[in-house]
């Protein structure tokens, strides 16, 4: 080859290690965040070709403007009753989170994960689905379950691993499962559910059913290979699935730049697969609902999958094992430009004359009482520290029926 060498050498190579704009001690900043004005981004028909909405992967769909007005082509999917219901859903999630954090401090559970600041994404999305659709969530979509009407007490039973835990003490707290509520069993392994959702959607289509699937993944977890698996299969088979990326800016201590890489948005991952992709203000309940409905209709009408990046912010710690002040400015949450989803919806309802501060307080109090009652009821069935399902139940459900070797082991264990 020797003599055909083009220009080599020259300056030494450098490796770029991404850094967030701000670290503890720095003033918080979100200067890389592209935000469009509410109402500005167009609403294509549900049968639009993915290639014709490339711009929507970079823009940000928003409905609520600074004054709390619902504006633009994505507005108008919900009436006042529905909006009030949505507000109540979000308040319930927030109250539930607060109480469970308290329960963790009291030792009733080993672990908890809140969704503070991200409530609109799952609450509004679930309202845009049919009850028989199946969600494949991560650990931060309690809003799906609560909105679907799953009993709070059963959630607490699971979190407390008590004698009424529907999962019989097997799973880490918050790893719920409810076929009936359209909520797939949560895995501790990030990402795995994304391709499973596509498989479920494929099965529904193979069966000429009308149910669709909705898959969930965090910004950090999009780096996992299952994300790619899901994209390839959804694209190849045109699966009736909504692929949701919850971009809450952080993956434990790692900012989204590590998973997002060089400058493109998460939504734009869809483009290389011919998958319709949209980027949305995830703290805007109306936008979340409108875009979710659009994607659900698209899937149901056999126009294929939609990838949605919900831009939001993880206000709290990653989990009860985490302290975010070690890796991001303490006041970063308060400077998040997209605000708080509950406040924004509340303001909108007030603005349109359908709500007031008093009604809000009443609602919050009512919701608190419901949550407290559920927690108290659950506590009567025990907590992690007290009563559980029988230890022998550990040997059940490994297989549909217990093989000999497990029977022997169960005996050996003394059950």
């Amino acid at each position: 080859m020797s003599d055909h060498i083009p220009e080599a050498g020259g300056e030494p190579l450098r490796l770029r290690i991404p850094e967030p704009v701000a670290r503890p001690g720095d003033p918080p900043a979100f200067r890389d965040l592209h935000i469009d004005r509410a109402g500005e981004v167009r609403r294509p028909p549900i049968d639009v070709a993915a290639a014709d909405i490339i711009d929507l992967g970079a823009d940000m769909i928003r409905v609520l403007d600074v004054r709390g007005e619902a504006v633009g082509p994505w507005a108008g999917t919900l009436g006042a009753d529905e909006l009030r219901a949505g507000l109540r859903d979000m308040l319930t999630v927030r109250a539930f989170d607060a109480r469970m954090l308290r329960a963790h401090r009291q030792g009733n559970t080993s672990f908890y994960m809140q969704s503070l600041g991200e409530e609109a994404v799952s609450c509004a999305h679930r309202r845009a689905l049919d009850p028989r659709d199946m969600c494949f969530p991560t650990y931060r979509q309690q809003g799906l379950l609560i909105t679907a009407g799953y009993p709070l007490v059963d959630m607490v039973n699971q979190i407390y691993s008590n004698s009424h835990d529907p999962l019989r003490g097997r799973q880490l707290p918050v790893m719920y499962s409810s076929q009936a509520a359209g909520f797939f069993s949560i895995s501790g392994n990030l990402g795995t559910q994304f391709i499973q959702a596509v498989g479920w959607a494929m099965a529904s289509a193979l069966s000429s059913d009308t149910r669709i699937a909705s898959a969930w993944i965090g910004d950090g977890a999009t780096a996992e290979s299952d994300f790619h698996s899901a994209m390839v299969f959804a694209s190849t088979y045109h699966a009736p699935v909504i692929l949701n990326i919850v971009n809450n800016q952080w993956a434990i201590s790692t900012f989204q730049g590590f998973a997002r890489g060089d400058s493109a948005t998460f939504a734009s991952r869809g483009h290389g697969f011919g998958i319709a992709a949209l980027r949305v203000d995830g703290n805007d309940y109306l936008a979340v609902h409108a875009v979710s409905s659009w994607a659900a209709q698209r899937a149901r009408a056999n126009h294929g999958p939609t990838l949605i990046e919900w831009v939001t912010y993880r206000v709290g710690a990653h989990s009860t094992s985490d302290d975010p002040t070690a890796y991001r400015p303490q006041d970063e949450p308060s400077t998040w430009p997209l605000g708080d989803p509950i406040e924004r919806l509340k303001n909108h309802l007030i603005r349109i004359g359908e709500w007031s501060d008093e009604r809000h307080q009443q609602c919050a109090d009512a919701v608190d009482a419901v949550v407290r009652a559920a927690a108290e009821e659950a506590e009567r069935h025990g907590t992690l520290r007290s009563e559980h399902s029988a230890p022998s139940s550990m040997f059940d459900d490994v297989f549909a029926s217990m093989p000999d070797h497990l029977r022997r082991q169960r005996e050996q264990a003394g059950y």
Partner: protein
Amino acid sequence: MVEAIRDAHIVAMERDEKVVVFGQDVGYFGGVFRCTHGLQQRFGKHRCFDSPINESAIVGAAIGMGAYGLRPCVEIQFADYVYPAYDQIVSEAARLRHRSAGDFTAPITIRMPTGGGIFGGQTHSQSPEAIFTHVAGLKTVIPSNPYDAKGLLIASIEDDDPVIFLEPKRLYNGPFDGHHERPIVPWSAHPLGEVPDGHYTVALGTARIHRAGNDLTVLTYGTLVHVAQAAAEETGIDAEIIDLRSLVPLDLATIVESVRKTGRCIVAHEATLTSGFGAELSALVQEHALWSLEAPVVRVTGWDTPYPHAHEWNYFPGPARLGAAMRATLDAR
């Protein structure tokens, strides 16, 4: 055996429309080993179809389909290519029933050609059964002949739990006994090559006494069943050869009964020695029949090296090595 496997698919697909089949090259073309040949033509593109080349996605999608209520039976083109799917198999398929307390299940079958003997080199020859037998919630099955292949595969597809179904590729076209220097013998000349029409099952967890005998017990499965048979014939040793057929669940009773009778035991497999399934068998035998043992349980296996290409017959535990081990075991103490 290819035909028996294909037949099992047809029977299962005809009886239950929830059975769907997919994998790389399995649709239009019918699979690189032809095990799904004609299924797409017969059952339509929605029951048998090609997939992108992503083993993890194949299994992950199958799990989702299983959770929906279908019964996917998927092919991994070679067992050597199952590793990318290991997370979906271990963390998901195997755990789903347990972690959801039965709320969701994964009644899926994952087929894959296993073992060497076709000059496939290190990435077309492996026998990874032990990485599955260690995983709670998985069943692991491996037939040694067409009759069992069909019956076990139908049973696996009908089973409500995830099943790893390993097909010794060297047996696809005949009962290979390790004598690679001899001409290939077709299944048609072998009694176990006769496969009944229609539906039947071989229950998972039942071993088969391939050859009754009194001198020693050989615990084995897959290709090595035939190698053991050849070794017994060539050494004239009256070996009892047990074809395990299913590693999890395991037919421990048959194993223990045989070893109590013969007092000597050889465990044979093609996979590497260390932490192979042979270790489990050896451990079980000494746990349940130590006082019957007149010699140590010996393992005859592939070496702890990658499966070589040119030297595959130096790696493969053939009749000579197995025969020598039989003699040594008989002579021990």
